[in-house]
């Protein structure tokens, strides 16, 4: 039995890795949507994390824990830079700015010698394993649940429902917005570092607009009533292409279709339950 399990884990290694990595990406999307903002920069933050980690490992031979920290710090810095001017405004400015960030980064990766141009970077050692990836996902989920069920979670949901009313209750809107974006960038960067260190090869096209929309679709499909929704959405959308292998080329069509169907018929996603917002027995 354990032999079969070992066999299974080996055959589906890359798929199982993807489940964990996409789960992290889904959470990174969730934290922004949870305060009512829309970012389309998740793929860009992921790419930043992936390239940062790959370069540190390949060029400098940096120790892996340090690599992971850097892969979160660099996207966090990018989030601060892009968030500072856009998050003072409400509306779609963040979405627009993050699309821009994604395109700028992609073009930079393609044209830079350092990042290996359009061919990307290869030969990245496989350093991330199941335990690390799923351990981080579990930790992140637990942290999100704990934060949800607190004053911070209540303020976040208040912002998502009615930002003006939330501000009138003393919620420091800019601070919440920038914090959410930075946490989101860190999670995406970590997912990028894992991605680089399980697939051994990264290229600019992995982190383009398609990827950004795919990550958004995790959250839309799963629903953002609780942190579990987006993770479930990520699991389904990661498994779907495997189940529907003959349709593989239509994967993006499927993602688009699912977004449309989700918006039309399941406004609360397939995990519609809403997480409570109290941190003690009511």
């Amino acid at each position, binding site marked *: 039995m354990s032999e079969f399990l070992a066999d299974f884990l080996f055959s589906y290694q890359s798929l199982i890795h993807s489940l964990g990595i996409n789960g992290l990406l889904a959470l990174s999307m969730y934290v922004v949507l949870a305060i009512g903002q829309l970012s389309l920069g998740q793929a860009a933050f992921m790419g930043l994390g992936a390239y940062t980690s790959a370069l540190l490992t390949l060029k400098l031979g940096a120790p892996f824990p340090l690599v992971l920290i850097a892969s979160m710090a660099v996207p966090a810095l990018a989030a601060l830079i892009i968030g500072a001017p856009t998050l003072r405004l409400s509306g779609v400015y963040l979405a627009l700015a993050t699309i821009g960030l994604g395109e700028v980064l992609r073009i930079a990766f393609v044209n830079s010698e350092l990042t290996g141009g359009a061919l990307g970077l290869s030969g990245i050692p496989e350093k991330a394993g199941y335990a690390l990836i799923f351990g981080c996902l579990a930790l992140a989920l637990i942290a999100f649940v704990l934060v949800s069920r607190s004053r911070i979670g209540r303020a976040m949901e208040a912002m998502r429902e009615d930002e003006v009313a939330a501000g*009138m209750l003393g919620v420091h809107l800019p601070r919440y917005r920038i914090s959410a974006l930075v946490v989101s960038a860190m999670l995406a960067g970590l997912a990028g570092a894992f991605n680089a260190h399980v697939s051994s090869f990264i290229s600019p096209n992995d982190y383009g607009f398609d990827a950004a929309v795919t990550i958004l679709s995790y959250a839309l499909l799963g629903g953002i009533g609780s942190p579990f929704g987006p993770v479930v959405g990520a699991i389904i959308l990661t498994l779907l292409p495997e189940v529907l292998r003959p349709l593989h080329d239509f994967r993006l069509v499927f993602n688009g279709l699912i977004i449309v169907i989700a918006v039309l018929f399941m406004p609360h996603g397939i995990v519609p339950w809403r997480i409570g917002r*109290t941190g003690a027995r009511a």
Partner: protein
Amino acid sequence: MNGALLTLENLTVRFGGLAAVDSVSFRVEPQTVHGLIGPNGAGKTTAFNLISGLGHQSEGHIRLDGETIDDWPSWQRAQHGLARTFQNIRMFGEMTALENVLAGMHVHVGGGLGATLLRLKSFRSAEAAAIAKGHEILGFLGLADASTRRAGNLPYGDQRRLEIGRALASDPKLMLLDEPAAGMNPSETAGLIELLLRLKSRGVTLLLVEHDMHFIMNLCDRITVLNFGRKIAEGTPLEVRSDPKVIEAYLGTKVAERLEAGARVR
């Protein structure tokens, strides 16, 4: 009188050429109910938005409890003791009634990110205390049974009460109420007057915009009347009610003249 809780000094806001609020000055004294009335389009809600930081004045100053708050964003004003309700209820509809009230306590509930993640004793006791206070406020509102119900599913009158409770939860020094009785039937309005009187006896200062004159005259210690963005009268309900300028604003020049003539004959 430097003891005023809220002072507006020559407050003006222009939208293009139109002065929606035109050098309006008045004070709200602590522990009073102050009414802001006027015909439609007089600039009452605009004035409220300026006071609460949702709009920015072109000229003039606003002082709240000794501080000039001209450039403060709304959350900073809220942290300094200002709360408000809205003309169209702005409830967090997905949240339960209790969670709405707890959200109102945002400024006062303790618990940083670290304490929250580690569920430290400080966090747990702060949450428990907040929940207890939340239940107390729901009881005060007469909504004790609704605590776990989704706020968006509550009847209209209860949502109005809950919105007031959410504002009350922040322990405000000054509460702005924008047409609290709008859309209410007479019995709901009577209940609301009773609720607001109990609020006043709790020491909350109220500034309210309302069209229901019965409501205003019953509740207010002092009334400021706006028309076309300007202050045209101020005083006790009795003084304001007999002020010809107020009658003119509400009923038109002819009626005012006739009333005045009638008064002289008598």
